[in-house]
């Protein structure tokens, strides 16, 4: 089921980038919003955070350029922005409704790799939050010299953790017969 969702998602992305129709984009966007109306506000905030900067730069630059050379093609501006919004919303919808680890389990290696990496990243991000708090709590004087000390610490700590995690994971996988050696 999850893999079917993955295939549908991939096909939908190809469709949205092949057929250039505002009606299609509006149609797909509306259906996805209605299917998940409770989470619309939360999702749209993430979507806009993801696309706003780049889209604004392109839109404003294009509008200014065409204003001075010919006339502003508002149809085109609406088309590209709608396409970007729809594709990005589709991706967020898909992520929110799919067990991605299961969907990508067509390859055992990829599945293990993603699961192990993802859990390490989550763990690292928690540690990173604590590190930032620790650095804030011990910084009485703001100094550029502290930057080198703090960033060296981050590199050293996570490098050590990575090496350690690699060995531990390797042992655990061997103990469970997942890998040989």
């Amino acid at each position, binding site marked *: 089921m999850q893999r079917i969702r993955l295939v549908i998602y991939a096909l939908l*992305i*190809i469709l*949205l*980038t*092949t057929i*250039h129709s505002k009606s299609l984009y509006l149609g797909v966007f509306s259906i996805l919003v209605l299917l998940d109306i409770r989470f619309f506000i939360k999702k749209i905030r993430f*979507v806009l955070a*993801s*696309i706003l*900067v*780049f*889209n604004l730069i*392109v839109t404003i*630059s*294009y509008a200014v350029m065409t204003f001075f050379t010919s006339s502003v093609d508002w149809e*085109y501006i609406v*088309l*590209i922005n709608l*396409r*970007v919004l*729809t*594709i*990005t919303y589709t*991706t*967020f919808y898909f*992520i929110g409704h799919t067990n*991605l680890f299961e969907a990508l389990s067509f390859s055992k290696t990829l599945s*293990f*790799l*993603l699961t*192990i*990496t*993802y859990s*390490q*990243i989550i763990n*690292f*991000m928690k540690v*990173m939050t604590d590190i930032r708090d620790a650095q804030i709590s011990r910084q009485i004087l703001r100094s550029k010299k502290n*930057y*080198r000390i703090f*960033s*060296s610490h*981050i*590199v*050293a700590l*996570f*490098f*050590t953790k*990575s*090496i350690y*995690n*690699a060995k*531990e*994971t*390797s042992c655990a*996988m*061997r103990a469970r017969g997942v*890998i*040989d*050696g």
Partner: protein
Amino acid sequence: MHIPDGFISPKVYIPAYAISAGLWAYSATRLKKALSSETLPFLSATTAFSFVLMMVVVPIPGGTTAHALGIGPLSILFGPSMSFLCISLVLLLQALFFGNGGITTLPINALAIGFVGSYSLYYTYRLLIRYEKIAIVISSILSVLLAAVVLAIILGIQPIIGVDESGKPLFFPFGISVTIPAMVVPHIFVGVAEGVLTLIAISVIRRFDRSRILNAKN
């Protein structure tokens, strides 16, 4: 810079996926020969490490800050194959698992930053290795700029490749004459940040040279 989905034509991203997939498979095979049963755990741990490197904010001259890409430490310490795979994994995780979007731009970023960036950094560093600190800085800036040029070219050809019957662009509207300066100039700062982070990382990590693992070169 994060390029959202929708600006790249399928005529570009589908072949880019095919090329990337081939390169991923090739790099993974080379890595497996070097590390055997430790490949998977080591790759996942190094990817988590590179994810963290991308979170480090680097202050650069001029009073501004930038995020490095992490290809410097990865390429120099673990080799360009490893760096390419790690960066690609990070991009996949960012796109799907951390909700940063960019599923159609994933193979393009993987090729530009992961492949071109990592290999150009590594070989430039090796060429200038006699003057190591200079080698690190020059290779970092050069690799980031090359990656930016590749991205700029891919974006810049969209008005030629992705057009309707009347020749009007359907995807990204600006040509190479706009995209190259627009991408390259800001990435000079990213290149400097990359150089700074790589200098710090190499000097710190040398303390931890677990030679058996770090000697798993290409």
